[in-house]
């Protein structure tokens, strides 16, 4: 288990950058990696997402919290191209990416995980990892049948996969089918796999859901490590202790709208947030593994 004090440098930078910012919804950040404007998604009569302005600070760990049905997952889906907006646009690294299909979003360096883990069950753990390596020559149909063209690259991808599996303590499961992993291990695998893409921004949808306490600690450590490795993290979580522990900034969503944002200690004392969110949350904490 990594000691919390060990990783401080990037955290200090992130905290310093966010220090002077007024904690109010839609406030601008010094170095945003994502800027979203007027993002609206309706399902029939229900407005699931209605975000007028939002910026995500580069290099920081930002938590997106809010009661069930607040629109967090839908917002993730929109940003990553898995769902289409009714209105609005957003940019990643200053490039407008609204309307970009998911695979292109991922290639640009913005990789997400899913609330319901998507381990590829009948692939081995190592193949789950290797799959995610980028720019692989052997993935082209024209070269696939000619192994000498891609063998070296495949070896490199395997080595990197093994390195990550070791870091995520899954190396013992290297040749098992992903289906043979526990729920928590699948979450670890999904996160490790996302890192194979070498993303700049990692978006985690409820990484702790259904994970046992022991694994939770190591997951927490891994998320902090992402920041120390220079990545930006945006994650959805219900576990308030965890949010307080690892996030540099917290965004609160309720009924599709951003109702508050700011540093964790300030936001979590906000009366509006406690009303909108924490009350509802305490009722729903027991609901561990909801669909």
């Amino acid at each position, binding site marked *: 288990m990594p000691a919390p004090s060990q990783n401080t440098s990037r955290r200090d930078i992130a905290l310093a950058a966010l220090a002077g910012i007024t904690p109010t919804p839609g406030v601008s950040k010094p170095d945003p990696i994502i800027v979203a404007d007027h993002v609206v998604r309706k399902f029939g009569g229900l407005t699931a997402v209605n975000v007028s302005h939002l910026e995500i600070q580069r290099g920081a760990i930002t938590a997106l919290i809010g009661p069930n049905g607040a629109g967090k997952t839908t917002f993730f889906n929109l940003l990553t191209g898995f769902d289409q907006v009714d209105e609005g646009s957003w940019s990643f690294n200053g490039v407008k990416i609204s309307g970009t299909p998911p695979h292109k979003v991922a290639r640009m360096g913005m990789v997400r995980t899913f609330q319901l883990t998507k381990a590829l069950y009948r692939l081995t753990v190592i*193949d789950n990892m290797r*799959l995610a390596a980028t720019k692989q020559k*052997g*993935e082209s149909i024209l070269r696939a049948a000619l192994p000498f063209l891609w063998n070296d690259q495949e070896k490199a991808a395997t080595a990197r996969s093994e390195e990550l599996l070791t870091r995520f303590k899954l190396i013992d499961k290297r040749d098992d089918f992903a289906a043979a992993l526990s729920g928590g291990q699948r979450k670890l695998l999904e996160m490790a796999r*996302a890192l194979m893409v070498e993303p700049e921004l990692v978006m985690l949808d409820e990484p702790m859901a259904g994970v046992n306490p022991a694994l939770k600690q190591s997951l927490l450590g891994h998320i902090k490590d992402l920041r120390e490795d220079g990545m930006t993290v945006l994650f959805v979580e219900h576990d308030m202790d965890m949010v307080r522990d690892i996030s540099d900034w917290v965004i609160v969503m309720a009924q599709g709208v951003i109702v508050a944002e700011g540093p964790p200690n300030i936001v979590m004392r906000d009366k509006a947030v406690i009303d909108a969110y924490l009350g509802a949350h305490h009722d729903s904490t027991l609901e561990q593994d909801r669909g």
Partner: protein
Amino acid sequence: MDFIFIAQQSFSAALGVNTIIFALAAIGLNMHFGYTGLLNFGQAGFLAVGAYSVATLVVSFNFPLWAALLAGILNSVILALLLGLPTLRLRADYLAIVTIAAAEIIRQIARSATFNKYLGGSDGITGKFGKDFFDLNPFKDGLDTPFLRYNGNDLWVVVTGWALVIVVLFVMWLLVRSPWGRVLKAIREDEEAVRSLGKNVYLYKMQSLIIGGIVGSFAGFVYALSRQSVQPDNYGTALTFFAYTVLILGGAARVFAPIAGSIIFWFLLVFIEQMLRQAVGAGYIPEWLIGVNQVGQIRFMLVGLGLMMLMIFRPQGIFGDRKELALDARA
């Protein structure tokens, strides 16, 4: 009962022309269904396109055979594009519906009076369109041994057909063990996860559909050439389902499964038929129970029964991995 004859018939069938046709059809389906999870219920359509391309272009348009074969491949690519472009972005069941309908449309067009001049209507096309192929036959005398017996033309089809199967299988093996094949298998498991990792799922599904379709058209070539005739009703839905039977019998997503499945399927079909025929002929089975004319139907019933037993006791197919199948239940 003449057991030598029964063995000869059964083994000849096990390695025969039909086995080759269904092995190729199932190899194509294995690419679609076994590796990519695409539900193609219109494999018969790809066979029909291959078979009719050869017959029509040679007989009605005087193409040389090699050019007709190339055109057949091209046509199967076009069919795959037509099927895939509108459906592969949608849920898996759309492809299933569209392919089953498309194969029927192809069959009905082939049967229609409108195109009678070129496609021969419900009688199909019979002619010497395989002449270029059979002219090359070095085995004009055929083969007559206690276990295998083929006439000259059949022997040539069998030899070249198995050569084709081996080449196709080798290419398949190279493809599915490559990173490209890994993407296909991942798509079978969960498309969205694959998208989230930066892969263009639509493109891969299209490539899979095209490649499996081309192999299906190869089966059509063998079908047409071996009989020197094409008939629309040979390319009905039943053909697709027999190809699935062959695939699942062997074990989906195993490279060699289609061959093993096809050999076993045709061996059993002919073996049961010959056994019944002789048993009825020799009076071991009373006439009131099974008549000679009913043997043809009853062999299918028995094979069906055998398949049911297989699915109950070995649902992963003969070469499949039970553990892997159980994982499908998302255990």
